[in-house]
């Protein structure tokens, strides 16, 4: 098997705003989405917890060889890392997205100042807790935004938009970093 190529080869890691925002890629080897049938959601969660050791949104989960899962819709879950993905058809379904997503890790003092220019969310500490993952549009395209720690943010973006989104973040930070 060849190495999986990243659409951001040669582009990341990168830093913006005079070094106060750093973006690096941390795409795990496996990513998938699982959905439960009506009435089987608790079962699906138990299965995912069992697979991942109940790992969820944390900086370990997004480190190399990390794993975890998070609920991203009423009965939909995003999972990543070296997890099994064969789900009992009686519980729900799982679709491999290992090549369809790219994971970006954002760190630095001004990450939030950048993110409030990219997504329409309330990112104040009181509104966006550590350990959460939400879906939100980034320039009108749905992405996942997670906050593993107080200072670390994770964006999970579609592969075909990954380069454009990094360019967009650069463009947006260009404007405000000179203010």
């Amino acid at each position, binding site marked *: 098997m060849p190495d999986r190529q990243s659409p951001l080869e040669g582009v990341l890691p990168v830093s913006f705003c005079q070094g106060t925002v750093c973006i690096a890629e941390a795409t795990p080897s496996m990513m998938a989405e699982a959905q439960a049938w009506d009435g089987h959601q608790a079962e699906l969660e138990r299965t995912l917890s069992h697979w991942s050791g109940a790992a969820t949104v944390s900086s370990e989960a997004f480190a190399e060889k990390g794993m975890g899962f998070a609920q991203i819709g*009423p009965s939909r879950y995003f999972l990543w890392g070296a997890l099994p993905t064969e789900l009992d058809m009686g519980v729900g379904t799982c679709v491999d997205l290992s090549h369809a997503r790219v994971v970006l890790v954002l760190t630095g003092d001004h990450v939030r100042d950048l993110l409030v220019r990219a997504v329409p969310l309330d990112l104040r500490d009181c509104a966006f807790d550590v350990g959460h993952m939400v879906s939100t549009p980034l320039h*009108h395209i749905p992405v996942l935004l997670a906050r593993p720690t107080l200072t670390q943010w994770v964006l999970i973006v579609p592969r075909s938009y990954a380069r454009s989104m990094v360019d967009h973040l650069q463009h947006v930070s260009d404007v405000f970093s000179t203010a």
Partner: protein
Amino acid sequence: MRIRCPFCGERGLEEFSPKGDAAPTRPALSNKDPEAWHSFVHLRENPKGQHREYFQHSGGCRAWLIVTRDTRTHNILDVTLARQEKR
């Protein structure tokens, strides 16, 4: 306008895509009466006041919602997951 998605919380209107009136009931696919289908596909009430309508949270969790909105004021009175509506 802000809509409170039952899963994602309150989000701006730009994250949602409207589809229209949630009231009409789809005829069974075995129903061959064109009038029944014409009514379902084309005919709509246009109330001044509360209106139950479909929105998809297309910029977020992609769940389909039933939003009860007052057409006079845009006030949103209720939002539920369409999937959980009793049939």
